[in-house]
């Protein structure tokens, strides 16, 4: 096994270089694979055609106008944004406080609690969906806004908790002690000293909760009622029928928002790193 491989023998010095070029080429191909469909989607949102085909007929903003006048889409978007916002706020509160308590106190069941927190993160979405559906029905709760929001909070807050926990592990424990020594009450110490230190983690956890909630379909599918349609449910219903250029327009809006989002959070991260 100690003999150098054929590749290394043929190109003794440049073996690694060749490997590197190969990796670079492969990465480029994968990025094309990742971005080409999105690009196609965006280009076709400007296609001026009435047919359900993919032939290019000219440039238009028609689909965007149509999208802005589509009241079911708009109300679905509104529902999604409201649910995602409530979910994010609740997740940040539960997740941050939970992470802090699990960090500060050694509960008798700490490990059990930690495992419980992990379950909604890793559990298959469909299992969560059907089990919550049965649960809500057994409790005779009406499916709709409240049930969806409860479901979303349940799978979103653990992500905030884990993000904050990772940050807490790197935190100097003497920070809190110093605050307490200087006369701060425990709640003051938490709010004035610990929370500011955790801000980057809270922020990225919040971002994660928001996007997870906005994009979720499986759990939503089972826990929502006919009156509360979210955007993914609406998109799914339309995409099942086939090509629909208003969907392309909507997707373009979404992708552009995502790109702005990612750049913005990267900017925040850099800002945080500089401090």
């Amino acid at each position: 096994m100690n003999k150098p491989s054929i590749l290394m023998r043929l190109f003794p010095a440049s073996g690694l270089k060749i490997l590197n070029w190969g990796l670079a080429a492969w990465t480029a191909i994968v990025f094309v694979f990742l971005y080409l469909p999105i690009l196609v989607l965006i280009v076709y949102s400007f296609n001026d055609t009435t047919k359900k085909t993919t032939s290019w007929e000219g440039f238009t903003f028609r689909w965007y106008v149509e999208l802005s006048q589509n009241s079911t889409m708009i109300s679905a978007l509104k529902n999604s944004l409201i649910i995602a916002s409530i979910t994010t706020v609740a997740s940040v509160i539960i997740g941050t406080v939970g992470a802090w308590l699990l960090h500060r106190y050694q509960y008798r069941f700490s490990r059990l609690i930690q495992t419980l927190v992990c379950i909604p993160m890793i559990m298959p979405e469909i299992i969560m969906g059907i089990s919550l559906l049965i649960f809500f029905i057994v409790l005779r709760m009406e499916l709709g806004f409240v049930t969806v929001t409860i479901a979303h909070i349940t799978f979103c807050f653990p992500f905030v908790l884990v993000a904050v926990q990772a940050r807490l592990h790197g935190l100097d424990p003497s920070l809190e002690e110093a605050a307490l020594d200087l006369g701060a009450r425990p709640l003051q110490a938490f709010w004035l000293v610990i929370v500011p230190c955790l801000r980057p983690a809270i922020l990225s956890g919040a971002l994660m909760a928001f996007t997870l909630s906005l994009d979720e379909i499986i759990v939503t599918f089972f826990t929502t009622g006919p009156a509360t349609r979210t955007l993914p449910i609406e998109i799914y219903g339309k995409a099942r029928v086939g090509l629909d250029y208003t969907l392309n327009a909507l997707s373009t809006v979404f992708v552009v928002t995502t790109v702005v989002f990612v750049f913005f959070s990267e900017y925040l991260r850099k800002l945080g790193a500089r401090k």
Partner: protein
Amino acid sequence: MQATNVTNATNAATELPTTATNHARRPKLFGWLLIAPMVLWLALFVVAPLIILLVYSFCQRDDLGRIVYQFTWENYARIFDFENPIYLRTLWLSILYAGITTALCIAIGYPVAWFIARQRETVRNRLLMLVMIPFWTSFLIRTYAWITILSHNGLLNGFLEAAKIIPGPLEMMYTPFAVVIGLLYAYLPFMILPIYGSAEKVDDSLVDAAHDLGAGPFRAFSDVIIPLTWPGISAGILLVFVPAIGMFAITELMGGGRQPMIGNVIQNQFLKARNWPFGAALGIIFTLLFILAYAFVQYRASKQNHNQ
């Protein structure tokens, strides 16, 4: 940053929880009161629903589809009916599709993750952002994008015809091929990010040492790099394999329901057939499968830790 966030989340899921820090105190009443809402929330909306799901899977239903609380094995007997194994076949197919997707994600994503991890920091961050944008874009939208490409009058057919590679349009939508493409496209970033998280931590000198000790590139890869990046791979497997089994939206959109997966069958039992107990039994079997996959990954991880 999100990438680290995802890696943290997935690693927290695959590694054993470490909560006890040496300066942690025993909680008094106040501490218990504060944690109580979260624990209650989890008990109410995670544990209780799962228990009810288990109970339901042993119940019967009446002719109107209402639940009858009477014990029966029948729902499970129907799944494990070896004379007429339609549900076992569906289950197997779902596992197969998810398995193929996971394998392809590793094969395609690993080199990318490794390449990104070996770059200078500025280049690395830019490439990572390129992975993150599709990661954060709605997977429904990304699946829909493929309909434009793969449909009968779609771009790929147009391109292949114009290039005279095929005489007429191929039927690519609503085939197993389309399902795998859809799943692969949706989950690839979920494999790249955690593997990147592990690959970034691999010390270059370890790889050099392997070379110095006479290992060829393949042996260095299999004996040094793979074990060191296993946490990322296993997190990726959990993030891709498990969701892919139950993902009915993609199989429905790309497969057109011609290839029913376990997710589609469960969804059907709850919404159309209205046989909730049977749907619950299917759900329980799926949960057991998931626990098995999870235990496997944990076992491999603990073995790896042991070896190091």
